[in-house]
């Protein structure tokens, strides 16, 4: 099972980790029902200590994004969320309306809504 972390997302996570001086920083992505298209994903920054090894899967970037530090970007997903999101990639988009982490290229998604956080599984 693979999750792609784009360089932009890795950079951003590293920056956050450095400004918070928290080397244990991780991004949790979870899926819930609801949203305009049936499922929506939620994101939160967590501490690697809070990961429940029974339920969660941690993905770590293979290399350090920026050579100034040694933080490797970490993404945490729980079992049902991973089931829906496997094969997708985590990106950090910079747009006029705001910059945000985004899940893109969800393989099972049939359609998604205008804001992009809600999707439907075929």
């Amino acid at each position, binding site marked *: 099972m693979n999750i792609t972390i784009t360089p932009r997302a890795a950079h951003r996570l590293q920056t956050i980790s450095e400004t918070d001086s928290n080397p244990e920083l991780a991004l949790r992505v979870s899926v819930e029902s*609801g949203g*305009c298209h*049936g499922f929506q994903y939620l994101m939160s920054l967590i501490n690697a200590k809070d990961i429940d090894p029974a339920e969660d899967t941690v993905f770590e970037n293979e290399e350090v994004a920026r050579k100034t530090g040694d933080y490797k970007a970490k993404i945490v997903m729980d079992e049902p969320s991973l089931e829906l999101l496997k094969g997708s990639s985590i990106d950090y988009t910079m747009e006029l309306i705001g910059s945000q982490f985004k899940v893109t290229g969800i393989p099972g998604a049939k359609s998604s809504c*205008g804001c992009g956080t809600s999707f439907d599984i075929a």
Partner: protein
Amino acid sequence: MPVRSTRAPWTCAQCLLKQKARRALLRRSISTSAAPPLPPASGAAHLTTRRLISLHGPDSPKFLQGLITNNVLTPPARQGSFYAAFLTGQGRVVVDVFVYPTQGSRWHGQAYGDGEPGYLVEVDANELEVLAKHIKKHKLRSKFKMRVLEEGEMGLWSSWREEGRWTAHPSQDSNQSISEEGYLSATDARAPGMGTRLLLPSSSQSGSGLPAELELEEAPLSAYTIRRYLRGVPEGQREFAREESLPMNFNVDLMGGIDFKKGCYTGQELTVRTHHTGVVRRRVLPVVLQSRGEEGGADLVYDSSAAELIDSVLGHEGAGLGEGEIRRDDQRKRPTGKLIARTGNVGLGLCRLEQMSDLSISGEGSSFGPEDRFMVQAKEGDGAVAVKAFVPDWIRGRLRGPKVQKRVEM
């Protein structure tokens, strides 16, 4: 003197139709049962076409809120039962449902005996598995338990009383889900006079099925259906096809099933956009069917003798479903709607409002005139009957006028 042939060659189509009807009537009186009787002024019908699913657990309100068109969490958390629909992401109806919050009821106490929120969701019996699957698919990690109630575990009844002709539109806080007698219930506020829905635990259903304290006679399911058709209330996926129908075409908005301010739910995007920027040109209206040529002063009433005549032309209701296209009865016979359900001479039509009624929906206005005639053709044979659509006061009252495009002068 020449003998005249028994069958005059110039018999007009109308008379042939009547002859055929009379013959069919004779046949029917021997072979099949007659048309359903007129619904009683007061009564209660056992809704065997509907089943129940129980959701129970701390996340159940939040879960339902994300999937249905109505607001579960109206602060403070909603106590009353309400009407709503599950939609697909593309805004098509999966199922139409009634939701009964059970917390605080006798049934909830016996079944779960705790303070966690719980709901009973009432759904078309044929779509029970579909809804159960839909809920399972979206459950993920939500903390609640889903259980399909056994048939007969709880009886669903619709009751109506003569004096209760004008059911008020229930305000959201006053509509408790528990009736005076202590049963789980819902004011059926889809249209005035639809009465009350009651969930009777199997223990209270004695021989006849109805507890004596309600002082109501049992009526057949057809009575409920006819009352529904006369008011223009569609229900179940035989009437609004699953994953094809748009909620507003089927009056779900007018029947109080959609909260346009609640926030995200599945299917919200299209629904809200249509509400605010679009025009709903087609809606379900009650229709009356008659012999062609007789449709002058038709009234919206069920008539079991007329019902037999219509059955003889179109076939027995339910025989051919997706009952057929409603067309303008002129040379071109252009379609103006669809007959979606029928019992005898009354039914429901999905009608183009500006062609089949005097309602003005868009800027163009209605093209309807009292001399316009519409008809529906039989599935088999060349028989056809006239169709007349009616706009009930409640629909007229809840519809908004056409939007005026305001031009901004610069």
